[in-house]
């Protein structure tokens, strides 16, 4: 099937992804450098309320922050291409290995909540649209508007308050129980953050899916299928559902990638040692190389999500297959 899509399409998508990547890391590079304050001044002020200028200057010289911006940028770009993402100011370790370790723990949260929220959001949305106007539809719509209107950290705190503080069922934070990282303990620790992340991204996917289902139900082929006496379940699963999922696909994949941003709050609240918590501390300390690395990974994840949707479309939609063949 992939071969049928045509390598040109894949190449084109890949190159546009690469372009987006370069643009994005360039923007983050310059934006981060226009932030007020710097690592050494912050650190010294925290320790002793006084930052000797010569110390700050020598630190800047050591890490190359005294070079002209274009030169820094070029060094940064060539570094990335060579696989050298720099060293963290704070930890002194290579950024890449720091991120790799934390990314693993973030994915432990992100993958299950992506799958859960895509499944639940699409499922509820499709059902709600299909049963448009019913009591279930009204209930789902109103409750999910409410869920979506409350910020994620509030749900995080609410979860902690009820399940950990009041009921004592779940741990307050962290990721392992002593001794060791047995799966049951990990599950207990991950449960609340995963549920919170899911809860916050279900509404967005739900609205999209519900609207798309409503649009699809107005299509002539649904009416035509009814006129042929097909059962309602056949109409739903063979005709309405596949067609209404199509426009939701891109947004859902992006939604899942955007959870990464949401995970900054969630990981901070639940003290989950992932990329979100790392981002938070790197922002606090002005750890430029680490921030650059994190944003680079964020960008990559979003581009990968987008690319996945782009490559999925031709597999599902014959109209897009024809368009690609015609190109």
């Amino acid at each position, binding site marked *: 099937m992939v071969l049928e899509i045509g390598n040109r399409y894949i190449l084109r998508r890949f190159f546009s992804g690469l372009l987006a990547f370069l643009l994005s890391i360039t923007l983050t590079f310059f934006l981060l450098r226009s932030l007020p304050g710097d690592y050494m001044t912050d650190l010294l002020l925290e320790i002793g309320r006084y930052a000797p200028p010569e110390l700050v200057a020598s630190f800047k010289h050591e890490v190359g922050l005294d070079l002209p911006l274009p030169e820094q940028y070029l060094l940064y770009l060539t570094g990335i291409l060579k696989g050298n993402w720099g060293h963290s100011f704070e930890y002194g370790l290579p950024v890449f290995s720091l991120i790799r370790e934390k990314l693993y723990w973030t994915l432990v949260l992100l993958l299950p909540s992506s799958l859960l929220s895509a499944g639940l959001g699409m499922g509820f949305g499709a059902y709600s649209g299909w049963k448009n106007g019913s009591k279930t539809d009204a209930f789902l719509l109103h409750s999910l508007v409410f869920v979506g209107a409350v910020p994620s950290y509030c749900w995080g705190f609410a979860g902690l308050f009820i399940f950990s503080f009041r009921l004592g069922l779940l741990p307050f934070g962290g990721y392992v129980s002593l001794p060791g990282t047995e799966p049951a303990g990990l599950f207990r620790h991950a449960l609340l953050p995963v549920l919170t992340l899911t809860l916050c991204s279900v509404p967005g996917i739900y609205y999209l899916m519900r609207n798309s289902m409503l649009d699809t139900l107005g*299509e002539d082929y649904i009416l035509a299928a009814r*006129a042929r006496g097909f059962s309602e379940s056949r109409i739903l699963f063979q005709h309405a559902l596949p067609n209404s999922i199509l426009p939701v696909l891109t947004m859902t994949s992006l939604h899942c990638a955007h959870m990464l941003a949401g995970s900054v709050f969630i990981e901070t609240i639940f003290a989950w040692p992932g990329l979100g918590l790392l981002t938070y501390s790197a922002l606090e300390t002005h750890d430029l190389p680490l921030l650059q690395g994190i944003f680079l990974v964020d960008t990559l994840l979003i581009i990968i999500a987008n690319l996945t949707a782009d490559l999925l479309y031709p597999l599902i939609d014959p109209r897009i297959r*024809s368009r690609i063949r015609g190109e």
Partner: protein
Amino acid sequence: MELIEIKSLKVTFPTEAGLVRSVDCVDLQLGAREKLGLIGETGSGKSVLAHATLRLLQPDALCEGEILYQGRNLLDCTPTELRRLRGRELALIPQNPSRALNPLQTVGKQLFETLRQAGYSKKEAVAKMPELLRSVGAIDPDSWAKAYPHECSGGMCERIVIALSLAFSPSLLLADEPTKGLDSLNRARIITLLGEVTENRALLFITHDLEAAALLCTRLALMYAGELVELGDKAAVFENPLHPYTRGLLFALPARGMQPIPGRSPPLTALPDGCRFHSRCPEAIARCRSQHPPLFDTGNGHFCRCWLYV
């Protein structure tokens, strides 16, 4: 007994602008092999009538009156009973054929699904498919079956939706503007095809194409703003049109001068007092403005809703 008998059918839709009276007190009968042309401009209620017959209207539509199919009122049928009738007995050839096909499935898959619904086994359905496609004029049925709807031309889509409706061998075909948007060659072919496939069944041919109706149908019914304004044998209607609206439509034909009727039909939320056509009627008299005319029987099964024939 008539195959289908529509008795004072009223269809209304509640909207924000008020109650839309799409179909108003329509009476129609159709015999077992009769071909009736239902003619009217957009918004005259002809498609709504067809959808009401199949009970395919949106749930908030209000239907009053009776639609008797072989003596059974369709408006009283349960959803399960309706499902058994739809397709099998009463088949719809929907408007906009290219949009009436699921864009994600091949033509073959949709035909197969429909044949399975019609009661064929998997083997029979596979065997029947090329035959069915050939019967609607496909020379190479296999390539048709492999095509997706977006790869088919307008004429091809029309043939495919006709094939889908024939999968069941229904006793009544409701064809909703099947010649719309086709070039003259394809239009002629579709008219011929519809004539062939309805040799042994009844046809309700909904159209604003008077000439196509004349070629296919034995009787014509003209609708204006939700109600019947003229009903009669094809020859009578064409040679001796009674209602000024019918006359206007005939004069609008390219062969008869191409004179369009001035003005536009009234909004269905605010229908005028008196005759609904009076504001556009060249022959309107004072009575037309104040009194709503009933459908007069002028003899020989020719009916007309006009005060000129009291």
